[in-house]
Structures are given as structure tokens and as C-alpha cells.
């Protein structure tokens, strides 16, 4: 059984018990435990069930590479699935549940999949479930859905209870990894004067060195780490962030760091995670190495663990995974585990070393402790169900003949070490195959390059492939020096400390154990624990013709689980290479992609949630609208009132009321969102002539003109009223959504094409609140306010004047988008609310009625005025809309003119704008198509037009619409048929688009 031992445990505090729950049972751990170590201390070796076969699985590793021990953490709003027990620090009240089992972890009915396993081989989705097709919905899918999958998604009503944030940091040298290599790199770079930021994903510095032993500068590694930390802490140019993972390395020195602030202590206030958005001149990845499993039958039975993990649990947490542990290895490092176990008073019945000659100094040390070593040996298979029962020993060179059954309750395996090259590779760093170490190592001549074309990533220590402690430190110091130099700091001499550790004998690559294992053994030898991919699956894929490692990955799902194949990658591609009869480097690796381990969605979103999920733009009158029941409509980031329903009134009724009140008496519109761009300079008229289809340079000071703007490919993009302020100055109104875009459009042409034009622009949209006072009583209201002459004689239609109204400094435009007598009045934004209130108060006697965008739209449609975004969709030119009158014939050029002369644009068959009225007075559907005779090549009905705007007109008491129709203007009075949802159609008559007051008598009073 696994249990807490009396010795060791450098990371735990035995005097501080911590209680937590696993699957409802109350358990005790110690402060400093991970969930995995605490579960092991409680003899909870079984931590989950596998993805496909629901096989019982125990913890394999001790760090972020763990594939098996995934749990659901927390409850309710704080529930998170698929969290690694090995990287979860325990705290009082932690609640964890195991995943992917039913009805319980110990007894799972899904294990029957085991017996179906021969049907669930590589590519089984593609092969087994193709026919018959109806089976998909009723048999296959329910079966797969029920049996596959890892953690459950959080409840749909749950809302993340935590908050998150981002932080932008800039540094000369970023060191990722706080092991002895990372610390040494940081020290060297910081001593040279570079600004250094060091990230360590766990809560502790030092990495593996304190577990693996040896001495640094004659000191215990722990003591050296403490000293290094003290020196870095004292340097003003160095900073260490623990619990912060280097998640990804991106272009031009951009790195994401993932800081977990309160995961280990949820009672702490403040953000849960912080996403560091780091820009580094140089990045050192000191990310260490990961031990590889060995491929023997039964290597997934709970109790089979990486040799390094067994050692970690013992040394760091004082936990023994078993009383009797068999060590299986192809290298010297695993001997450290055997030695540590025996020194802790535990039994190691045998070390099975696959190498014919065995190991070096460490083997001698183990033998001296009385541990039996079998060389040239293999674990033929491990027996057991929910726990290791025994190991069957054979010879590595054989096919699986069992020579001896060794009873034990744990197996420590080691297939050698793979440098963690992920972060080196994220941004394009290339790898070389090192046959001696049987590992991919960074190729320094092909490093990721930055904006200046120079390398910006350096690997250090065992991440670079150095495995001996002394070499690790030397290598790391070199990396620190190089990084500092590249960032412009010269460190002079290399300052690496000397380190002592036993020399190790070379490993012998072992990709299958025993090398000639028969099929029934290979079918039980797991490569990818999380996705249940076995040696036989990869071999089958190769047999079936999958030669590319990228294809094999997708076909077998090898390395595609949440651990991204940290343990399985190299073993998998070595197996593939063997099956294909190729060398490993020829087969190559799959692509390493960020993040290194999954990061929370919350961290990615940062502060953007709730009220500040996105910027909501508010006008100066927004609060009034809010307080008066505005039904909001988003227009870009603006919120505009759609209508102001009164208590008990429907939105539709409110719109109806607002239209009639405006038409009959007096309406009020908050038009502040309209763009207002000031264009000034001796060439302003010339510039606007290029920008608008109209002639603007001839506009008289004091006058307004409605203008159209097109893109260079001829399509109508914006419209609005232009006012000439003085000889050199124009004010251009844009649509609500168009202000920023049109201002950018103006700047683009001025800066990049017509830089000889003497023109300045300023986007003054938000300087001014703008209110439209609309209706037959509009003038009376302004006269009541007093301060300026707004008579027909002094302020005629399409004129503007500066002045004062009720003491407010105003600019009044006599323009109309409704066909009514109408004034648009601009006041400084900070006076907008007061002016609005004043209008409401003074207008009471005329039943002044604030109206929203829907009433605005209806009134403009009644007048046949187009709306950008309704009548236009990026494919419509002004000529389609009958706006030829707004296109100057006198100008040589304007933006879009040449395009409008292209053959498709002048095609007489282009659909043209008309008015539409149903025969029965009902309202056409928005976007409805006009049906033509026959069908097209796809069997769809032919069309001859479409509805662009459609409303029920309260003024006219019937449905009105505008639409683009083939030869429309020539077909007045003709009745055509429109789609009406489903197979229904409705008849409508083609009419003039100006439905109301066609002579404009109301607005010209």
C-alpha cells in the first residue's frame, strides 16, 4: 500500500494537517502536499478511469506531465474539470472528485469496453461506425458519448465566481523555469546588469536537484538554491515569480506567463489568475526534462509509476507508493530511486536493467545496499487489476518468456529523459536527434528569431539536453551570459559553480519491452495513457499506411489529450519509426503548440467580464434614457434607445406612439452618436470633392448638403449632411457607426495618397451632444427657449447658425431625416443632459415625446430616405438607390468613380430601389426575396429582388417597404410575389419609395 513514511518530506509541514474531500470521503494531508501526494498518503492509488476503456488508473508522474490523475476540483460556481492532482496544492476544504466512471471509481460498468477493446483499435471511429448510417444517431453516438470523455463540463447555470487580470511586463532576459539551471542563468544574466524575470510554475525553486542529490559548490542543492534565491532577491534588476508557468513563446519575444495566485488558498482576496503578457529581448527556457515511461504489458496498472515520481513522492512529501517496489530501467538515473527507497527502509526486490552491461557508479551503490540487479532484463508484464500485484521478469532480448514472477505493490520505471523542448519549439526552434541520449535536443543554429532577425530563445540545463549536474550549471551559466550579451550586457567571465554528482553509464534505448514482445503483450502496452493509445494501435496505423507522424497522431489520437503527449510523444514516434523501418529523426516530431499546460479561460479573458466585458459607449443623455425605460439597441459599441415604452406599454406600441406624436406635434431624438468630423484647410473643398460623390467645394458658407461616400470599389459606405462652417472649414456628419471608420478613411487618404493636400481633420463627435427637435411644433419650442432667430427667413431648410437657446451655446442645423420641420441642435457634451432636460420641460405643452431609433427608422422610410446598412450591404452603389442626383457629373474624379464605370456596375439588370406595398396592407418580411419564374441550376427559385427595409407605418396605417427590384423603377404599379417564410408568398405592388409628403411641404415650412 502507499502510505506516509516517518522520514523525508522536504516540502511538507507535518505539524500542519490539512483536511480535504475526495469523492465525498474526508481525508487528511499535510500543508505542502499536492493532491496527488496527499491521496497517496491515504493509500488512494486509484485516481481515475481511462478515456476509452475505463481502465483503473493511478498517478504516474509528480508534475505537470501527469496524464492519469485528472480530477474535478471544487463545486458549483468554482467547479473545474480535468485538473491535475499532481499540480494541485491542497488546502483546507478542498473538494475533489474522480472522473469518467460510473457508478463509482472502484466499480465501473464501462470497464466492459475492455472486452470490446479489439473493436476499439486505431481509427475505430472511422472503421467501425460508418455503416449503417442510422446507427450513428441511435446506437453509436449514445454509446460513445456515454463511455468516452474525461471531466464533466460545469453546470450550465454556474458562473465563474473568481476574477482575473492581465499584466504587461518588459524585461531584458526572461528565464522560464526555477530549477538550478534557471536560477544559475538568472544569476549570470542579472549579475551582468540585465533586467531579469524568472518564472517557476510550482511553488518551489530548485526543480529536481534537491531530490536527485549531488553537491553544488560543496553545498547541498537545497542550500545552494536558498543562497541563489537570496542573491536574486537582493538584486534590484531581478525578480522571481513562483506559481507562474511560462505558457507559450510567441513572435518577437512575446511570452505568456500564467500566474496562479489563489488556487492554493481560495480564501485569499484578489484575482485568481494573472496572465502575464511579457515582452522579452531574450528568453531562456530552463524547463528541465521529463522521464519517459517504458512500453511493457500492464504499464498502466495503478502502482506503475515513473521512477523519478516515486523518488519525488518519497523525498518531497514523505510518501511511499508501495512497500515493495520493483525498478525497471534502461539508464542509471532510476537507481537513485532504488537507493532512496532502501535508505528509507522500504524494499526493492529487484532492479530490472534492460542494458546487458548494466550501469555505472549508481549500480554499484545499489548493489552495495544489497539490492538485486538483473541486467539484460525486462518486465514482460505487470500483473494486477486496481493495483500492481507482481512483475514477470524475462529477458529484454526475448519475446516474453517469463523467468520469474516478482511480487510487489509498485513499479518504478524509467525509459530515459526527454528535454522539455516545448517552449523552444513554440516559435520555430528546431531540434536534432541525439542518438546517444535517445532524445531530441534544441539545435542552437536554428533558434527562433525575433524582429531584428537575431535568435531570441536559448535553452539551459537539462532542457538543452545536459543531464549531469555539473554540466547543467555550466550550460546554464553560458545561457545566462549569452542572453545578457545579446540584450546588450557583458558579463565578462562565466561564473558557474562546480558541482559533484556520480558519473552515469550510457543508456540503451528501449522502445518495446521485451524487444520482441508478442501481440497480446503489445496490446496491453500503453503509450498514451490519457487517450488510451497502445503500442499495437500505432503499429496498426503504420500497417494501414499512415507514414506521417502528424497523420498517425490524428488517426490514433496519440498525444492529442489534455497532456498533449508529454509522456507519450517520443515513445510513440519511436514505435512508429520502428514499424515503418525508419530512423526516428526521419519520422520527426509533431508540432509543439502553446500553452504548455492548459490555462484557464478566465485568465485569457482577464478583466473583461460583466460591466467591463466590452466598452459600452454612452451619450451624455444615457442616464436619462436608462431612467425612462429605454429599450436599448446596440449600434456599434453605442447603446441607443430603440423606443421608450411606458409602464405597461409594449415596445411596438411605444414606437407607434412616438411616430404619431412626432408627426402630429413634437418629438425629441438623442442624435449625439452621429459622427461629426471637422475638415479644415485651403484644400478642404478639393479633398471633400474626392471623398464625396457630390460637389462639396461649391457649398456656400452657412449651408448644408446631404452627401454620399463610396469606397474605391464604388460601393456606398456612408452618408450624412455636410455643413460649410467657413471658407476653409467643413463639418461632416457621418452615420452613428461610421464616425471612427470615416475619420480613419479621411486620414488614410490624406496621409498615404494626397499628402500634398493642405487639410487637417479632427473627429469632434464626442465634443457635442446633438438633439433633433422634430415636428410641426419644433419651431415654437425653440422660440419659447429664446436667444436666436429660428424663423424660416433667418434659418431656412438646409442652413445652420451658431447662437444661444435658453442660454446654452448652440449650433442649430435646419435639416430633416423625418420629413418634418426639424432642427438638429449641437451643444457641448457636458451641457447635453441639461439642454435635454430643458427641452423636455419647455416642450410639455406640445406633449414633447422622446423617440428612439425605431421611430427614426420608420419616419425616414415613410419619406423614402435610405439607411446605410439597410439599403446598403457593401454591394450596393448609389446608382442602385436612385441617388444619381447626388453624384456630381462635373467632377473628373472621386473615390469610387472609376469603379462605378466597370461593366458590372453599369449593367442595366442591376436591381434598383423602389417602394413596395402589400395588397392587403400587411408588412413584408425583412430580407424577403422577390420571386421570379423558373429555378436556377440548384433547383432554387429564381429571384428578381429583395426587401431592404420594411415597417408598419403608423402614419399611413399600413405596411410599407423599400427594396431592390430588377427594372424596378420601370415597373411602377406592377404586382410581384415575395417570400413570406416557409413556402408562403405574399403579393406586393411596386410603388414610389416616397410614401409620405412627396412634395416635402412639411419640412419646408
Amino acid at each position, binding site marked *: 500500500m502507499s502510505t506516509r513514511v516517518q522520514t523525508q518530506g522536504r516540502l511538507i509541514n507535518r505539524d500542519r494537517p490539512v483536511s480535504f474531500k475526495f469523492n465525498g470521503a474526508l481525508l487528511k494531508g499535510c500543508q505542502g502536499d499536492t493532491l496527488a501526494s496527499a491521496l497517496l498518503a491515504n493509500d488512494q492509488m486509484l485516481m481515475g478511469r481511462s478515456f476509452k476503456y475505463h481502465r483503473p488508473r493511478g498517478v504516474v508522474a509528480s508534475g505537470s506531465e501527469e496524464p492519469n490523475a485528472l480530477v474535478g476540483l471544487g463545486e458549483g460556481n468554482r467547479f473545474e474539470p480535468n485538473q491535475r492532482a499532481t499540480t494541485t496544492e491542497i488546502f483546507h476544504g478542498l473538494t475533489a472528485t474522480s472522473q469518467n466512471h460510473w457508478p463509482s471509481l472502484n466499480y465501473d460498468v464501462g470497464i466492459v469496453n475492455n472486452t470490446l477493446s479489439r473493436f476499439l483499435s486505431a481509427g475505430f471511429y472511422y472503421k467501425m461506425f460508418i455503416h449503417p448510417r442510422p446507427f450513428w444517431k441511435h446506437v453509436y453516438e449514445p454509446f460513445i458519448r456515454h463511455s468516452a470523455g474525461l471531466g464533466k463540463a460545469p453546470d450550465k447555470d454556474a458562473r465563474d465566481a473568481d476574477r482575473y487580470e492581465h499584466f504587461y511586463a518588459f524585461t531584458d532576459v526572461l528565464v522560464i523555469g526555477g530549477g538550478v539551471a534557471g536560477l544559475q542563468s538568472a544569476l549570470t544574466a542579472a549579475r551582468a546588469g540585465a533586467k531579469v524575470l524568472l518564472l517557476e510554475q510550482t511553488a518551489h525553486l530548485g526543480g529536481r536537484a534537491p531530490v536527485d542529490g549531488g553537491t553544488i559548490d560543496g553545498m547541498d542543492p537545497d542550500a545552494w538554491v536558498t543562497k541563489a534565491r537570496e542573491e536574486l532577491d537582493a538584486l534590484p534588476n531581478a525578480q522571481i515569480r513562483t506559481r507562474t508557468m511560462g505558457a507559450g513563446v*510567441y*513572435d*518577437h*519575444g*512575446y511570452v505568456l506567463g500564467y500566474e496562479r495566485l489563489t488556487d492554493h488558498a481560495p480564501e485569499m482576496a484578489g484575482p485568481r489568475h494573472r496572465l502575464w503578457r511579457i*515582452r522579452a529581448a531574450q528568453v531562456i527556457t530552463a524547463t528541465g526534462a521529463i522521464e519517459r515511461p517504458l512500453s511493457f504489458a500492464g504499464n498502466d496498472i495503478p502502482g506503475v509509476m515513473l521512477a523519478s515520481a516515486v523518488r519525488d513522492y518519497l523525498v518531497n512529501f514523505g510518501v511511499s507508493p508501495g512497500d515493495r517496489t520493483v525498478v525497471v530501467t534502461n539508464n542509471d538515473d532510476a537507481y537513485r530511486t532504488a537507493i532512496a527507497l532502501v535508505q528509507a527502509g522500504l524494499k526493492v526486490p529487484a532492479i530490472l536493467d534492460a542494458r546487458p552491461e548494466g550501469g555505472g557508479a549508481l549500480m554499484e551503490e545499489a548493489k552495495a545496499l544489497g539490492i538485486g540487479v538483473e541486467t539484460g532484463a525486462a518486465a514482460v508484464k505487470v500483473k494486477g487489476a486496481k493495483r500492481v500485484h507482481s512483475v514477470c521478469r524475462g529477458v529484454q532480448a526475448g519475446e516474453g518468456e517469463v523467468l520469474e514472477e516478482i511480487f510487489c505493490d509498485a513499479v518504478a520505471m524509467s525509459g530515459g529523459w526527454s528535454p522539455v523542448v516545448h517552449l523552444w519549439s513554440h516559435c520555430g526552434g528546431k531540434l536534432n536527434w541525439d542518438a546517444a541520449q535517445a532524445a531530441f535536443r534544441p539545435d542552437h543554429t536554428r533558434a527562433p*528569431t*525575433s*524582429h*531584428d*532577425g537575431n535568435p531570441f530563445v536559448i535553452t539551459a540545463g537539462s532542457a538543452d539536453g545536459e543531464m549531469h549536474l555539473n554540466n547543467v550549471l555550466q550550460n546554464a551559466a553560458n545561457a545566462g551570459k549569452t542572453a545578457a550579451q545579446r540584450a546588450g550586457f557583458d558579463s565578462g567571465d562565466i561564473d558557474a559553480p562546480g558541482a559533484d554528482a556520480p558519473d552515469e553509464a550510457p543508456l540503451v534505448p528501449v522502445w518495446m519491452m521485451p524487444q520482441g514482445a508478442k501481440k497480446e503483450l503489445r496490446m496491453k502496452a500503453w503509450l498514451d495513457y490519457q487517450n488510451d493509445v497502445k503500442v499495437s494501435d500505432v503499429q496498426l496505423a503504420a500497417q494501414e499506411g499512415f507514414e506521417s507522424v502528424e497523420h498517425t497522431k490524428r488517426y490514433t489520437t496519440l498525444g492529442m489529450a489534455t497532456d498533449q503527449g508529454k509522456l507519450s510523444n517520443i515513445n510513440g514516434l519511436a514505435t512508429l519509426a520502428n514499424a515503418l523501418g525508419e530512423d526516428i529523426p526521419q519520422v520527426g516530431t509533431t508540432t509543439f503548440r502553446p500553452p504548455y499546460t492548459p490555462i484557464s479561460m478566465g485568465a485569457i479573458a482577464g478583466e473583461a467580464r460583466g460591466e467591463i466585458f466590452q466598452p459600452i459607449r454612452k451619450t451624455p443623455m444615457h442616464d436619462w434614457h436608462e431612467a425612462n425605460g429605454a429599450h436599448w439597441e446596440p449600434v456599434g459599441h453605442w447603446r441607443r434607445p430603440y423606443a421608450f415604452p411606458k409602464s405597461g406599454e409594449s415596445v411596438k406600441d411605444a414606437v407607434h406612439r412616438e411616430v404619431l406624436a412626432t408627426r402630429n406635434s413634437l418629438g425629441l431624438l438623442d442624435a449625439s452618436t452621429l459622427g461629426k468630423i471637422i475638415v479644415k484647410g485651403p484644400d478642404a473643398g478639393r479633398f471633400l470633392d474626392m471623398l464625396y460623390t457630390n460637389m462639396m467645394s461649391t457649398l456656400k458658407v452657412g449651408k448644408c448638403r446631404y452627401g454620399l461616400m463610396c469606397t*474605391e*470599389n464604388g460601393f456606398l459606405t456612408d452618408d450624412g449632411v455636410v455643413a460649410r462652417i467657413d471658407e476653409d472649414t467643413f463639418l461632416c456628419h457621418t452615420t452613428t457607426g461610421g464616425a471612427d471608420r470615416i475619420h*480613419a478613411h479621411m*486620414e*488614410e487618404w490624406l*496621409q*498615404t*495618397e494626397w*499628402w500634398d493636400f493642405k487639410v487637417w481633420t479632427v473627429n469632434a463627435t464626442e465634443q457635442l451632444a446633438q438633439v433633433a427637435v422634430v415636428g410641426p411644433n419644433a419651431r415654437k419650442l425653440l422660440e419659447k427657449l429664446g436667444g436666436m432667430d429660428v424663423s424660416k427667413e433667418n434659418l431656412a431648410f438646409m442652413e445652420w447658425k451658431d447662437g444661444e437657446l435658453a442660454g446654452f451655446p448652440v449650433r442649430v442645423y435646419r435639416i430633416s431625416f423625418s420629413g418634418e420641420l426639424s432642427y438638429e441642435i449641437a451643444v457641448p457634451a457636458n451641457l447635453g443632459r441639461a439642454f435635454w432636460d430643458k427641452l423636455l420641460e419647455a416642450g410639455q405643452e406640445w406633449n414633447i415625446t422622446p423617440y428612439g431609433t425605431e421611430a427614426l427608422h420608420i419616419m425616414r422610410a415613410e419619406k423614402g430616405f435610405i439607411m446605410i446598412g439597410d439599403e446598403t450591404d457593401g454591394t450596393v452603389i448609389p446608382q442602385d438607390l436612385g441617388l444619381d442626383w447626388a453624384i456630381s457629373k462635373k467632377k*473628373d*474624379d472621386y473615390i469610387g*468613380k*472609376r*469603379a462605378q*464605370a*466597370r461593366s458590372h456596375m453599369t449593367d442595366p439588370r442591376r436591381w434598383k430601389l423602389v417602394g413596395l406595398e402589400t395588397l392587403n396592407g400587411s408588412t413584408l418580411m425583412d430580407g424577403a426575396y422577390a420571386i421570379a419564374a423558373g429555378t436556377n441550376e440548384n433547383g432554387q427559385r429564381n429571384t428578381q429582388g429583395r426587401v431592404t427595409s420594411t415597417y408598419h407605418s403608423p402614419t399611413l396605417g399600413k405596411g410599407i417597404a423599400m427594396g431592390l427590384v430588377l427594372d424596378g423603377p420601370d415597373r411602377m404599379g406592377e404586382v410581384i410575389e415575395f417570400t413570406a417564410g416557409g413556402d408562403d408568398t405574399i403579393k406586393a405592388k411596386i410603388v414610389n419609395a416616397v410614401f409620405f409628403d412627396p412634395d416635402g411641404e412639411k419640412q419646408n415650412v
Partner: protein
Amino acid sequence: MLLITCPYCGVEAEETELHAGGEAHLTRFGPDSSDAEFTSYLFHRENPKGVHFERWRHVNGCGKWFHAARATDTLEVFGTYSAQTTTPPKDILDTIRAKRPGFRWRDLT
């Protein structure tokens, strides 16, 4: 995420401050142009693997458009320069010639 220096305000700006504006140094063809000229101006773009000349705007910054000479394969930025020019300046072309001997881009070599 790219880092490009704005030649107007000197800020080494990350991509989120910038707006990409497509190919640089296009010649505008207006109403008197042929269909072929206009089509080429409006639609035909270089798509090189390697040296490219682009327009960028420091939109969340000083607001200025500028030009950048950049490698589309390695993302190396050879230099940035004024928007008010119809051809890259000599010093930038010299830099590119030194780093990418034999490069070709439209009529530039």
C-alpha cells in the same frame, strides 16, 4: 505577436496598437485608366514568401500611417519609413539586399 517601431513617434509598438493596411506603394488609377490598370490597382496583390513592403497605421498611438519592410517567412522587420513616399528609401533597400541577397519584389531588386 509582432513588434514594429513607428517611425513617427518612435514607439516600439506591439501588434494590438497597430492596424495592418496591406501592400505598400500601389499606384492609384482613376477615371481615365483602362480596365486592366484599374483591376490591377484594385485587386492584384503581391503574396511573397520573404521580403514584403506593407502599410501599417499606429492606430492606438500617434495615428500615423507608415511603411514597413518585413519578411513574411521569418517575420523579420528590416525597417519602417514614412508613408509619404512612393518607393522604399535606399538605406532600407541596402539592408534588405545585404540580408536577403537576390530578393525581388515587383520591380525592386
